[in-house]
């Protein structure tokens, strides 16, 4: 056996498990979904073979879910960014290197508890027995926090913050400190150094974080379910309804396929922008 052939076999062996997994649990189901999307709902629910664009024509009936998702997901990701950047900056640049590792691991501590439990806790805090109750005691009545877009955004920022902090932290951490010294040496005040050097060079991390959080948010179900209470609902919630309640698989599939297409478009545009802004080939988005 030649070494080339051997190398090919090793490569194949390394890729095979992941490839197989993706094939069975991602590619095949997705293909099934595409097929379903052009079918019809069977009278008793589920899927019935057909070829029709009726499901796609019906998409506007779920416009609210699309609208909510498309508005709240990017806004949520942006709010995450606003909160995460200073934290990541502190961790990577300002914190004492001795304690840095401890501080960074604290960021992921929330992941030790299920997001469900933590979001449920927010339901109580924001619900009538939580903060509105406390405000009522000091005479501020009729404050509704739960089941508002604000509550959903709060839950999003709370739940997704670590995912935003991490990539930004990594890009700031590997930033060459001498560049900051060089900038100061050339007369740049700290704010100018931040805007001219630190921020642009951390953009790959920012873009990775924003893309990561946005993509996950587009499929979010739990947070709008608990904190939006049916009033602020995402595509994810619509999908659960369609598949599990009304058992309209073809329509659900059409929505899901549309979501995937939107994600791919958003992602490729974001990647192109990141590539242009940072001007380097070091953008690693997904």
């Amino acid at each position, binding site marked *: 056996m030649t070494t080339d052939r051997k190398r090919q076999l090793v490569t194949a062996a390394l890729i095979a498990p992941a490839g197989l997994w993706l094939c069975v649990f991602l590619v095949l189901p997705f293909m099934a979904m595409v097929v379903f999307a052009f079918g019809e709902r069977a009278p008793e629910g589920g899927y019935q073979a057909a070829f029709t664009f009726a499901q796609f024509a019906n998409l506007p009936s779920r416009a609210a879910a699309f609208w909510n998702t498309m508005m709240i997901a990017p806004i949520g990701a942006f709010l995450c960014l606003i909160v995460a950047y200073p934290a990541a900056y502190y961790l990577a640049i300002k914190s004492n290197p001795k304690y840095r590792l401890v501080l960074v691991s604290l960021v992921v501590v929330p992941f030790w508890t299920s997001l469900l439990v933590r979001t449920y806790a927010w339901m109580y805090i924001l619900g009538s027995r939580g903060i509105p109750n406390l405000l009522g005691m000091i005479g501020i009545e009729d404050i509704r926090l739960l089941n508002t877009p604000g509550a959903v955004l709060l839950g999003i920022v709370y739940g997704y913050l670590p995912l935003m902090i991490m990539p930004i932290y990594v890009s700031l951490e590997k930033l060459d400190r*001498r560049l900051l*010294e060089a900038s*100061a*040496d050339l*007369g740049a005040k700290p704010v100018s150094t931040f805007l001219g050097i630190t921020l642009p060079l951390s953009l790959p991390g920012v873009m990775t974080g924003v893309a990561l959080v946005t993509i996950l948010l587009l499929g979010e179900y739990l947070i709008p379910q608990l904190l939006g209470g049916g009033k602020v609902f995402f595509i994810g919630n619509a999908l659960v309804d369609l598949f599990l309640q009304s058992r309209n698989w073809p329509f659900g599939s059409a929505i899901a396929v549309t979501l995937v297409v939107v994600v791919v478009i958003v992602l490729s545009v974001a990647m192109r922008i990141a590539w242009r802004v940072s*001007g380097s080939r070091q953008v690693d988005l997904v």
Partner: protein
Amino acid sequence: MTAAPANDIEFRSVTKCYGSVTAVSDINLAVPKGAFVALLGPSGCGKTTCLRMIGGFEQPSEGTVLIDGREMNGVAPYRRPVNMVFQHYALFPHFDVEQNVAYGLKQARPKLAASEISARAREALEMVRLSGFEKRRIHEMSGGQQQRVALARAIVNKPSVLLLDEPLAALDKKLRTAMQIELQTLQRELGITFVLVTHDQEEALSMSDMVCVMNTGRIVQMAKPQEIYDRPADLFVADFVGKTNRISVTVEPDGATLRLSNGMALAARSCLKPGAATVALRPEAIDLVRQSTGDGSSLAGIVTHRIFLGSTAEYQISVDGLGDFLVTADRRSMQESDLVEPGERVALTFDPGKVHVFPA
């Protein structure tokens, strides 16, 4: 009215500690205006810390650093009239060459006109002979070109002092020699003070007009390059700058005779403290003579290795009773047949005036 300070940089009893480690210990240093000074020493001797204290990246734990007669304690780097060429250059990877060079000009307040920024950036690039490379990206430039960009970026603001942190360390030998000459030329053209940090004694001797040898956080000797080489202040300098043969001797009670361990006597030039001492002798201060018979009046030994270097040849000679000696022979004074072969017996002669004696 006070006269303009004669020194661009002054250290007054400067000490720098990192926790319990003292990096720089009670240094006094004055760099005259327009000088080219090299801080030379092995790694960890505190030379880079000194440079960083001038740049403002470190603050002295004790003492004062003055630039242009002004106390600089607590003054941020961006407020100091100095610029630095960083080790590994620290060029901004997201800017092209011209943007890198123009960066310092863009920080000026009140703002400079865009046309002036561009003109001055191009002028600086011209000085380092990089015209035509304005729009190149940094990663498209070779190491030597990046070095020039870093230089242009640092001189564009017309600093009163240019700091250079091991600027040539990453270049190959040929390029390094060319850059040494260029740096010297540049310094003369600009007429500003250069402070160079290096561990390479050749670089320090060849470029600067003042060398400051440092060891373990202190200045050991500050003098002109020739003086450092010809009259090293101590054994450390003799060893670190150039090559040296070290010979253990005993100073006889008369204070005028040096006794080698093989019994040979040398006359001391000045009166010395009796006791153990070390003699330092440069390899090129020794002459080799082919020896057929040992007459006992000079050192004799057998050539063990020859390193042929083109214009010179280095010999390692095992001297009877004294161990290995290094001798450099200039080939200009030799016929080709004069190259001594390993295994030959030779006599070593030297001018006693070129012997340096240090107390052990």
